[in-house]
Each structure stands twice: as C-alpha cells, then as structure tokens.
C-alpha cells in the first residue's frame, strides 16, 4: 500500500458513498401480511384432504401415504362406510382418523405422489403458528378442504391453482 492508500480516508469515503447510494434504491422488503410473495408453481405447503365435486371425501384410508412418508408424520385409522353415508365418503372405506404431525412433516410431497385417489395434496398455505405442540398435530377436521357444495368460494381458495392441475 502506498501512503495515500494507508490514509484510509479515500477508501472510507468511497464506502460511505456506496451506502449513501443505497438510501435512494428501491426497497427489497415485502410487507408480509399486506403483500404476499407469489409462490412458484411447484411450491409445497400444508397438506389438504380433498373432496370430489359432490363434496365427498376422496380418501379411502389405504395407508399408502403413511407408508411413503419418510418422516412418519401421518397416522390414520380406517372405518367402513355405513349405508346412508354415501354422500359423505366416495369409497366404501374411509379414514375415521387422519392426523399429520406438522412438526415432523418435511413437506416433501411423497404423500401426494403416493395417493391413488388424489385425496391428499400439498396446498399453498404456509404452516401457521401455534401456541402448543399439540396444536401442530393436525386432525382430520383441520385438514379437510371446505365442502364445494356448501362453500364453493372456500373450496376454490383452499384448492389454489396447484390442485387444479391435479384434478384435471
């Protein structure tokens, strides 16, 4: 270094003007609750249990998703469909209990790929916060998508554009 460089003053001034120039640049912040970053097409968010067009649950409790799950986050119990419940369940067998432990889930999407009935898929919701660990074990009620016959808007919203690709 020569004497001029050893003074450090020019370097300091240069640095100062670099930071000053940032004063006038566009801000990178996205103000989250009001503005949201758009997700890529392949984004994998929270799982959702799907229904068909008549509002019947698609899941038959075959257990393939639980087998495919590398994190062993999925538990389910099967039950047989009783007469008179045809408007609730699409197949003869259904999941009486279906839980996903969101603390274990790694959002890999294997469950979605394993499912032969298109019953489970990953939506665009990001996992929300919760006060207790128990709250992160999502029950079937938490996972089920709104009924399209009763709440078509909520159904479309929960579906997102990702699921449309699957349904068609």
């Amino acid at each position, binding site marked *: 270094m020569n004497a001029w460089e050893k003074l450090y003053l020019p370097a300091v001034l240069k*640095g*100062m003007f670099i930071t*000053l120039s*940032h004063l006038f*640049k*566009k*801000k*990178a*912040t996205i103000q989250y609750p009001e503005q949201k970053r758009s997700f890529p097409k392949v984004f994998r968010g929270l799982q959702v249990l799907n229904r068909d067009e008549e509002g019947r649950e698609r899941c038959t409790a075959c257990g393939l998703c639980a087998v495919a799950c590398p994190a062993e986050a999925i538990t389910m119990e099967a039950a047989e469909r009783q007469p008179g419940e045809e408007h609730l369940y699409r197949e003869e067998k259904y999941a009486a209990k279906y839980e996903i432990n969101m603390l274990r889930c790694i959002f890999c999407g294997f469950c979605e790929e394993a499912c032969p009935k298109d019953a489970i898929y990953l939506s665009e919701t990001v996992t929300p916060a919760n006060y207790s660990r128990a709250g992160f074990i999502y029950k079937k009620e938490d996972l089920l998508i709104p009924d399209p016959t009763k709440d078509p808007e909520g159904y479309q919203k929960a579906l997102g554009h990702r699921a449309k690709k699957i349904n068609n």
Partner: protein
Amino acid sequence: MYLLMIDWWFILEKFLLVGFVVTFSLLIAMYTTYAERKIAAFLQDRRGPNRAGPFGILQPLADGGKLFFKEEIIPLASSKFLFVLGPSLAMLTAMLTSAVIPWSTPLQIGGRDVPLQIADLNIGILYVFGVVSLGVYGIMIGGWASNNKFSLLAAVRGASQMISYELSMGLALIALLMLTGSLQMSVIVQNQIVHGWHVIYQPLGFLIFFICALAECNRTPFDLPEAENELNFGYHQEYSSMKLGLYLFAEYVNMFISGTVMATLFFGGYDIPFVNEASWGLSPNLLAFIGFVVLLAKAFFFLFVFIWIRWTIPRFRYDQLMNLGWKKLIPLALVNMVATAIVMLLRNR
C-alpha cells in the same frame, strides 16, 4: 461574570431555558433513535419501523413504554447504590454540556434581552471538556457495580478509550482557540460570523475533532464499550428496564449535543453562511428563531453523518483503536497546532 448575584427575572428565565433545553434534547434524542433505525433500514434497502403510527412515528414512544414496563433486575451481588448511580450519571453528564451552547441570538421579551444560552462562561470550551471527561464515570461505575467481569472489562475498555481520545480532542481544539483567542462560546460564534467558519481554516482540526467526538459518544467504529455481538454486550450487560434505557438514551443525547458543539465550534453556530441576516429587517425574535433552526439543521446533519458512519464502517479492533488515537491523531493534532501557530506568526509580522 459574577455567579452569585440574585436577579429573580434572570433566575426565572434561566429556569425556563434549562427546562426547554432539557426537554428539547430529550425529544431530539427520542427521535434520533427512530432516525437511527429508519436510516439504517434505508441504507440496507429495508423499510424500518413503520407499524406504530404513520411511518412508525410513534415507535420511540412504544420503545420507551416497553423499557418502562420491563422487569427491573438488580443483580444480587452488585452494589445497589452505584448500580443506580451509573446510568443517572451517564444521563447527567450527557445533559450538562448543553449549558454553554449558544442556541441563537438573544430574544427580546418585554424590553429585556434574553440570551438563548444558559451560561456564557468565559471558560466555555473548558467546561465542555470537563463534562466530557466526567462522562467516563457513568460507564465505569455502571460496569463495576454490575459485579460482572464482562461488564467490568468493557467499562475499563471504554474508560481508556474515552481518556485517550479526549487528549487529541483537546489538542485539535487548541489550534482553534489560537484563532479565536477566547474560550467563550459566544465569542467563538461571533468570530465565525465576522471571519467565516472555522472549518475553512481548520479542516484537519475539524476532522480530528469529529473522529474524537465519535469515540467520545461510543459510536461505531469506536463502540467497543458496548460491542454487542462479539464482545458480550459491554458495560450495560446486567442492566434492564429503564436503567438500560437511560444508558442507551444518554448515547443519543450525547450525539445530539456533540453535533451542536461541532456546529458551534466549526460551522458557525446559528450563523447562516453568505448572508447578513441582520440586514433583512426582521424582528429580533424571528431572527433568533431562524438562527435556532439553522443550528438545529447543522446538528441534524451531524446526527445523520454519525448514523451514516455507523452503518458503513465496521468496528475497530482494540489495538487499532489505540493505535489510531495515540500514534495517529495526537501527532496529527500537534502538527496542526504548530502549523496554525506558524501561519499566525507569519501573518502577524
């Protein structure tokens, strides 16, 4: 200057002035914390606090409220009195300096000239110096009373830093004093109104003074006493609640006051450059107000530069800090002093 004569109007007006200056500098310090965060954010392409009130204007109030309602912790093995004394001293010494700053030209109220300066001591600069040298105690007492080895180390570190930089600060000022021939702040400002700002004559002196002011206020790149991330948070490690708030606040008050001191000593105080505001024919009160605003504008500029430097230049290592203080700034200040003396001698011949 006879200090003990009693004139009740005089006392009343001084009380009002003191109250005004204190509340005003506290207010400014409050909003400097906001400015610090906002400018830091802007320099880093962020937005900064913008939730409390429009543009986050109420953020300092929210911060203050948070500090007030936090739990007060006094370490069991600390000396309680000194533990409380530390932050109070820091705040006190930060405020005391403002007593000799001439804020503007005198007001005229009811036929009386009311000078906008709390005390026009003829040892004005030395007074500033005395108070600055007392600023060490807030840090040292707080650090020692916490009974924590990290805060003690930080306190010792801070004290030696402040003492070292006081020296070059004083030497840089001596050259300035040779120009004015007086230590009185009002005379120094008057001299600049007549002859032009001192920064023209003393650019090197100003640079040294500025660097030392950074070090005295414990601002980056000299914020070793409180180096929070690599050196364990510094002398106020054990402090919580409003006592921590006082320490943090004292830093901002210090910044504001040192900004005004620099404006007064080197940038003409309340003087507007290139114009003769007395010839505008305005009323003296309006002129005083304009002068006050001008001084504030200069002080705010320095505040901005302080913050700007903080978010640009990384922290010094301790040996680098001492090297800069003792081996660079002091010889430079001495050279500056001698050069000024020689030039003055030659010009007088």
